[in-house]
C-alpha cells in the first residue's frame, strides 16, 4: 500500500476475515510510533511492535488514570470514565485493589468452573439442535453463552437477569455520539448499583463481587474502588468473550484440517484456543494511557499529557516474534498470552477466558462435527465501528 496520510484515522478498515488491518501493518513496518486520530477528535500515539508495547505498558511514566473529565477518550465518557475502577488505577493503589481479586482469578482457581461452563454450553447446544438449521451462531450461542454462564458465575440474581441482558454486551460503538456513550455507561452504572444492593441483601459467596464487597467492609478498598471495579469486571465478563466465541468457530470452520485434528485429539483444543487468541484481538485499539512526563520512543518524543494507544493484534502479529503471523496454525510453539496485554494491568481474566473458550468451542464442535459456514466468508458482516471486532452474524449449518 502507498504512504497513508497522517494522522491515521481510527477506526481503520478491517483486514480480510479478521486479519490485521492493512494500516496497522503499515504502521508496524514504517511508523512504530504513529499518530492516530480517534473518533473523539484527539490524536494519540499508536505503538505496534511487541517490544515497545511490553516496555511502555510496564512503564510507570504512563498513567492509566482516565477517570477525570477531559481525559482522552475513544468517543465519549465510556467505561474508562468510571471512578476508581481497577482499569483506571495506577500503582500503588492499583496493586491493592488487584490483590483483592487475584486469588479468585488464578489459573488453578478458575479450573473448577469448567463444569458450569460445559453445562450452559450443552443446554444452549440442545436448543440449537432443536431449532432452525441454518442458524446465526452469534445469536444461538456466542453471544448467549457468556450472558448465561458468566451471569451465573458472577452471581447475577434471577430478578436482575433481564436487565443484565439489556445492558450487556454493551455496544461500545465507535460511530456513536458522546451522548449515547454517556447514556450507555450510565445505564450500566444503574445496573451495577442494583446488583451490589442485591448482593448486600443476599450475599453470593465465591464470586468476585463478594470478594470486593468483603474487602470494602474490611476497609481494604474504598466504596468507590469497590463500585468501579465491580462495574469493570462486569463489562469484561461479557463483551470480550463474544468476539472469540464467534471468530474462533469461524476460523476453525475455514481450516477444516486443523479442526479435524482437534476432534480426533481433544488435547489439541487448548492449542487451538491459544492460536485463536493470537490470531484475533477483539479489542481494536485498546483504551488510552497518558504520559506523565516526556518520554522518547524510537526517536519520537511523546510529550507529557499525550495519549498512547495499543492495538493488541499488532503485538500478536509482530513478525519479529511470530513467524508468518497471517497463517492460522494451532501447532505454533508460541501461545496467545500477548493478546491479554502486559505490565500491571495484564488481563485479570486471561485464565478464565481460556477456560470458557476451551469448554465452549470444544463442546460446539463435538456436538456438531460437520458445522460449516452457511454463506461465503466474503459475505460475513464485520463492523469496523464495534470495539470488539467480530462478524456481527455467523450463519452456520450442520
Amino acid at each position, binding site marked *: 500500500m502507498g504512504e497513508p496520510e497522517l494522522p491515521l484515522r481510527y477506526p481503520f478498515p478491517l483486514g480480510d476475515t479478521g486479519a490485521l488491518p492493512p494500516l496497522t501493518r503499515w504502521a508496524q513496518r514504517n511508523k512504530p510510533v504513529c499518530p492516530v486520530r480517534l473518533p473523539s477528535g484527539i490524536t494519540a500515539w499508536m505503538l505496534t511492535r511487541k517490544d515497545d508495547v511490553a516496555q511502555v505498558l510496564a512503564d510507570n511514566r504512563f498513567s492509566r488514570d482516565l477517570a477525570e473529565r477531559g481525559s482522552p477518550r475513544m468517543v465519549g465518557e465510556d467505561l474508562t470514565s468510571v471512578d476508581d475502577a481497577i482499569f483506571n488505577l495506577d500503582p500503588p493503589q492499583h496493586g491493592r485493589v488487584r490483590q483483592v481479586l487475584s486469588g479468585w482469578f488464578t489459573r488453578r482457581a478458575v479450573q473448577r468452573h469448567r463444569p458450569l461452563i460445559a453445562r450452559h454450553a450443552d443446554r444452549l447446544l440442545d436448543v440449537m439442535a432443536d431449532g*432452525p*438449521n*441454518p442458524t*446465526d451462531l452469534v445469536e444461538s450461542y456466542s453471544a448467549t453463552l457468556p450472558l448465561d454462564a458468566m451471569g451465573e458465575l458472577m452471581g447475577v440474581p434471577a430478578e436482575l437477569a433481564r436487565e443484565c441482558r439489556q445492558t450487556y454486551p454493551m455496544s461500545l*460503538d465507535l*460511530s456513536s455520539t458522546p451522548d449515547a456513550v454517556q447514556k450507555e455507561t450510565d445505564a450500566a452504572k444503574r445496573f451495577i448499583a442494583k446488583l451490589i444492593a442485591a448482593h448486600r441483601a443476599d450475599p453470593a459467596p465465591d464470586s468476585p463481587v463478594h470478594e470486593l464487597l468483603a474487602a470494602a467492609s474490611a476497609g481494604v478498598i474504598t466504596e468507590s474502588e469497590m463500585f468501579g471495579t465491580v462495574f469493570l469486571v462486569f463489562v469484561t465478563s461479557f463483551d470480550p468473550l463474544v468476539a472469540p466465541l464467534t471468530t474462533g468457530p469461524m476460523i476453525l470452520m475455514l481450516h477444516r484440517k486443523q479442526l479435524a485434528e482437534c476432534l480426533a485429539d481433544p488435547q489439541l483444543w487448548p492449542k487451538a484456543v491459544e492460536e485463536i487468541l493470537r490470531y484475533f484481538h477483539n479489542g481494536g485499539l485498546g483504551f488510552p494511557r497518558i504520559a506523565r512526563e516526556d518520554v522518547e520512543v524510537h526517536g519520537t518524543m511523546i510529550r507529557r499529557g499525550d495519549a498512547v494507544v495499543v492495538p493488541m493484534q499488532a503485538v500478536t502479529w509482530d513478525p519479529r516474534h511470530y513467524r508468518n503471523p497471517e497463517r492460522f496454525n494451532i501447532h505454533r510453539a508460541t501461545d496467545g498470552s500477548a493478546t491479554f496485554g502486559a505490565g500491571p494491568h495484564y488481563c485479570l481474566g486471561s485464565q478464565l477466558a481460556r477456560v470458557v473458550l476451551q469448554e465452549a468451542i470444544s463442546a460446539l464442535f463435538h456436538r456438531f462435527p*460437520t458445522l*460449516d459456514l*452457511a*454463506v*461465503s466468508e466474503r*459475505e*460475513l*458482516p*464485520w*463492523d469496523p*465501528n464495534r470495539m470488539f471486532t467480530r462478524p*456481527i*452474524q455467523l*450463519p452456520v*449449518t*450442520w
Partner: protein
Amino acid sequence: MFTFTRLSPATSRDHVLVGLSPMNGRYTPEYIRKLIYWLQPRFRSIDVILPGFEAAYTLVAAGQPPTQAVRRARRACRQVRNPAVQALADLGVPDAARHVTSWTRLHANATYRAALIHSRRAYLTDSRIRRACRDMTGEVVRNAAAGGREIDAADIDIAVRYVIAEIPLFIHGPSLFGATESVFVYHRPTPLVTAIASGDCILTAEPGQSWAVVTEEENNHGRTGTSAALPVPSR
C-alpha cells in the same frame, strides 16, 4: 425493453436498489444483464441486493435436508451475483463488486440491524404485516416443494425469516445506501411493499423511500423498443 411502474408518487432518479431472487427462474444471467443495463443509466447510483443465509429456509421448509438446502442456496446466489457484478463492471461502475451485496453482509450496518429488530416486532404485532409475510412465504415454499408436499405452519414459521430480513430494504434504502432518495425495484408488487406503501401499517418508510415494479416487455420483432422514458406512475 422494460416497463417501469412506480408504486408511489416519487419520481426521483437518485438511487435504485434492485432486488434479485436467486430461486426465481426469471433471474437468468441474461435477464439480470439486460435489467441492469436498462436501469443503471437511469439513476445516479445503483445497488443490487441478494438474500442472506435465510434463503436456504425456503428449501428447508420445502423438505430438503439443511446442508443440501444451504449448498443450493449458496450456488443460486453465486449464479445471480456474478452476472450482476459483471454487468456493473461492464457499465463502468467503479468497484462493481461492492455494489452487489447480500443482506447478511448488511448486518455490518447499524441501521440495518436496528430496522431488523423493528421488522421482527412489526411481524409479531401487526396482523396485516404478519399475514403478508406468511402469505408470501407460503407461496415461495409451495413453489419450491417437490411433489405436492404439504406445507404446515411450522414450516412457515422458519421460512418466514427470509421475508422479515428483507423488510429493512423496503423502508431504509436511503440511509442503508447513503442516498437522499432511493427506489426499490422488483419484478412484481408484493403484498408487503403494498402494505408499507399504503402507509396504514406499523412500518413506515423513511423519507425518500419509494418502490417500483419493472417488467420485461415481450418483443416479438427481435428489436429493442425505442422508448427510454419512464412510464407514468401507477397512481
